[in-house]
């Protein structure tokens, strides 16, 4: 039994499931910051899992090194882009909708 291929398949499957879950998350969550949470956190982990799952398909070649490079790059840029988005939205004045008690006590 080819254990490398089995491990790669499991990682790919988990990553694909996470991607779909993140896709549902960015459509179902109520406001921007929660959607950003679904997108930013899930995408980083799912990308890592999918890229790791692809590594056995290439074997010990230059391809695996390139996969590792893509992985490292995504690991740095995905949270950075997420932070830049949240910062830009916050600086431009986008706030979470208030809860009903808060908005009834202090309407603004």
């Amino acid at each position, binding site marked *: 039994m080819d254990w490398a291929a089995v491990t*790669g*398949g499991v990682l*790919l*499957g988990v*990553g*694909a*499931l996470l*991607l*779909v879950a*993140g*896709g*549902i998350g*960015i*459509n179902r969550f109520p406001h*921007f910051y929660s*959607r*950003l949470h679904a*997108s*930013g956190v899930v*995408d980083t982990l*799912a*990308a890592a899992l*999918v*890229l790791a*799952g*692809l590594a056995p*398909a*290439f074997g010990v*070649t*230059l*391809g695996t090194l*390139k*996969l590792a*490079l*893509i992985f490292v*790059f*995504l690991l740095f*840029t*995905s949270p*950075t*882009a*997420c932070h*830049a*988005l949240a*910062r*830009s*939205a916050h*600086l*431009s*004045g*986008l*706030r979470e909708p208030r809860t009903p008690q808060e908005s009834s006590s202090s309407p603004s």
Partner: protein
Amino acid sequence: MLLAAGVAILVAMGLALLRTLLGPTVWDRIMAVNSFGTKTVLLIALLGALAGRTDYLDIALLYALINFIGTVALMKYIETAPHEDAPEERA
């Protein structure tokens, strides 16, 4: 397994596209486009694995670079522009 993962990535791309079209604020749209770009990188890498060629991975790496630069550039552009949904509380 590669094909199943490819279909799942395509479904996730469709969902991201849906948020891009629906997104009430401009940040929702940019977030969805960024997410779409990340999924495109994964799809290109997966196509490379399906074709058994490592050339695709160079394209995937380049796409990841362009995706990040594009998002940050859009951020810098929007950060200076006030938003119609936002209350007047910018300092």
